[in-house]
């Protein structure tokens, strides 16, 4: 999968939830949205990018935190 596009999509999702006042809830909602709407291979590609370039993969801070915090829920068989 085009990982740049996946990162852009993830950041877009993060931008919506970033406005929520309850940050833990926002983190959970970001991860939940990705989990419930992305095919496993897309999530796997995102996680692989996160693992290969931690901190420089291009995710916004809130999305990076959401993915790291809720990583288990995002893992699936590609």
């Amino acid at each position: 999968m085009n990982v740049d596009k996946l990162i852009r999509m993830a950041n877009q999702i993060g931008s919506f939830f970033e406005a929520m006042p309850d940050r833990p809830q926002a983190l959970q909602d970001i991860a939940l949205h990705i989990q419930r709407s992305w095919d496993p291979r897309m999530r796997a590609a995102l996680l692989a990018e996160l693992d290969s370039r931690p901190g420089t993969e291009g995710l916004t801070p809130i999305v990076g935190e959401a993915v790291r915090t809720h990583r288990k829920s995002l893992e699936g068989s590609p």
Partner: protein
Amino acid sequence: MNQLVDIDYGTPAKPAAEQVSLEIDGVAVSVAAGTSLMRAAMQVGIAIPKLCATDSLEPFGSCRLCLVEIEGRRGTPSSCTTPAEAGMRVRTQSPRLAALRRGVMELYISDHPLDCLTCAANGNCELQTMAGVVGLREVRYGDAGANHLDAAKDESNPYFTYDPAKCIVCNRCVRACEEIQGSFALTIDGRGFASRVSPGQMQPFMQSECVSCGACVQACPTATLMEKSVIEKGQAERAVITTCAYCGVGCSFKAEVKGNEVVRMLPYKGGQANEGHSCVKGRFAWGYATHADRILSPMIRQTISDPWREVGWDEALAYAAGEFRRIQAEYGRNSIGGVVSSRCTNEEAYLVQKMIRAAFGNNNVDTCARVCHSPTGYGLKQTLGEAAGTQAFKSIEKSDVIMVIGANPTDGHPVFASRLKRRVRQGAKLIVIDPRRIDLVAGPHVYAQHHLKLRPGTNVAVMNALAHVVVTEGRLAEQFVQARCDTDSFEQWRQFVARPENSPEATAAVTGVPAEEVRAAARLYATGGNGAIYYGLGVTEHSQGSTTVIAIANLAMATANVGREGVGVNPLRGQNNVQGSCDMGSFPHELPGYRHISDGATRALFEQRWGVTLQAEPGLRIPNMLDAAVDGSFKGFYCQGEDIVQSDPNTQHVVAALEAMQCVVVQDLFLTETANYAHVFLPGSSFLEKDGTFTNAERRIAPVRKVMPPKAGKADWEVTMALSNALGYPMRYRHPAEIMAEIAALTPSFAGVTHERLDTLGSIQWPCNAQAPDGTPTMHVDGFVRGKGRFLITQYLPTDEKVTRRFPLLLTTGRILSQYNVGTQTRRTENLRFHDQDLLEIHPHDAEARGIADGDCAGIESRAGSTVLRAQVTERMQPGVVYTTFHFPESGANVITTDNSDWATNCPEYKVTAVEVSRVAQPSTWQKARQRFTDQQLALLVRARS
């Protein structure tokens, strides 16, 4: 169902507030107060002679044929204009009345050609019938005097003729144009004997403001206005009530048929979505169904540079199934997927998603809602709890304030637009939020109180500004919110929208809308009575499409404009069955009824019924499938009735994805742009060739009934079934009614739906179940489907697609009345006479700065690609914004659009593309390459047939 002529009650029904009882010809009758004597009589089977009256129009009282006598009253009043009163005793027949009627008829016939035997209306002419009814036996005036018998016929319209020689000046056509369609394109020119029906200012129809809706033709009691198809083919033998296959209004039609050939389509007055009205597409543009371009034999080939080979159904299906299984064996179960057609029936949509989930064994299924109203599904589900609009179209009759956002109903949903305009003419106020000056902003007897002419991409900022005014000026419906909504989320939202950065003054710099205009619109919506919001793709097709839908729902809840007639949140959905295809589980993450695939209990229901184990993870959406194809992990694609090469954004990316696949199966009526990249072509069937149901934008499930046998031998549901069987997953349905029974058994919102119930009720709005056995016209009446209405914060975020010095203009795309979406059908009809190419609308300032004159070739370049269109210089556009339609493949409108998309659903951002426009002399490189490729593909098709 097969009745060719409906009962005409002469005048419209009146709401039954109070009943009055009277006697007509000695028969007791009780009717709603305000009902005409003519209608009251017809209710007990007494047909009073008439010519200028018909029950789709308000009474006019001009023909003097419907005179009656009322005991105790003088004179002979016209029964169409005289309301029934309690205790009246009415006589419809007497020697005096007979003499009067005969005299009137004699005058009519004295100026009417007596060519009945060769007239297209012979046997179906009200004038002819009335002459018989009143017993006209002679015409004493001869033909030596002045008459209109030599008046020239107007044949300019491709679908109907206007023969003034046959006109009796009853005004029905003029009134239909005014009252039903609201175009005011017809009038009566001249006075007395010189009176003539005049399109525009005595212009030919095609040069007038006529929009060819057909209301005048339907209203005409003679052959003055007559369908050319009837003139050519003669009158029908039978009629079948079915549902139009164009837009999401879902008009009900009577298909009038001779043998297996359609003679004409008449809007059915019993149809609850359209109540007897139609537009140029549904009424007239059905010829594509029998067009010579239809491909009626299955075809296969190994590569897209090979010639097609016509084969039998069995061979084509075995080849497709074999290829899909080979790909899965080599690349994995998830390497194939498919698209459900939103043009096909609910039953067909259900079968395709079932085949993909059960036979393919994955959830890689999607539908064209992905590129139109997927944000509606998400936004309304999150806030209100159900992924659909809240009202029936009829609800607009009780609206006081109508807000239209990002929709152009007069072009995209014309029959609904006529209802909307009628309500505005009655006094409702209209707010339009749109970058363009659409026709609703200022039309005949309709104008918008406020037109918020925003910059494309700033919907959220405008909605937040409207909410800011409601909140900060104390115009909230506090009681409603406290009782019906989640108050924690409401408080968060209230604080958010009240922030200074959301004020109209602060957002004006971004949106381009003057603050006072926003404030006035907000006050009107919040305090003007029943406020209804109707929106379209101008809301959803943005990077913040879902956010805008949420903002709309927030605003409606905050002002208590949900849960009763006259209000609501109403998506004007695009395709005839896009609501239905979504309902049927066509999204990769949802089973039928919008239940998430990860829900084990729901999955278990389907697993038990289908006898398979379903994947619990969401599959790929269409854009994800295309990305995965380019990436190499997606190799096989079943595309039912969608032309993604033309309709989806960034054409060159779509083409690259299709070229990267090993097996593309297209099931369609024609060799579409997408079919040019296919390895298997399976002939599809038009809506006239099958049974089933469509679900329109108001959740109305309406019957689709077979008018003629499938021209290629199989209806689409039979093709899917055969493919599934070839894949080794058996399907054994004998009729779509059996498929609906399975849908009902597995989907709570459809639990009470059967084809038999639909035959009885005409149509049903879901949810239809034990709690609502006849369906649900208005949603969220006593509570929201999700329990408490949920507010969400809607932060405005500018799109990434920004104007720069290189791309200083914003392109937005849309539709035009006479063409439909990618034009596959309408381009194969006479609708080409109305619109034969996509044009680039550009403001005079922008055109002048680039040396572009009206009609020049204009090159349009974006970050994604470039194409060339003819320029139309118009002040409908605001400076800095250009617009085009996407009906013609050679235009390449989607070569320009990018793959930016909505954050929640990946709905493409068609409505905002940064471009530059310049004057050019020749087609773009892409256009030339496309033409070469298309020519090659047509040559390969010809070789298959030779």
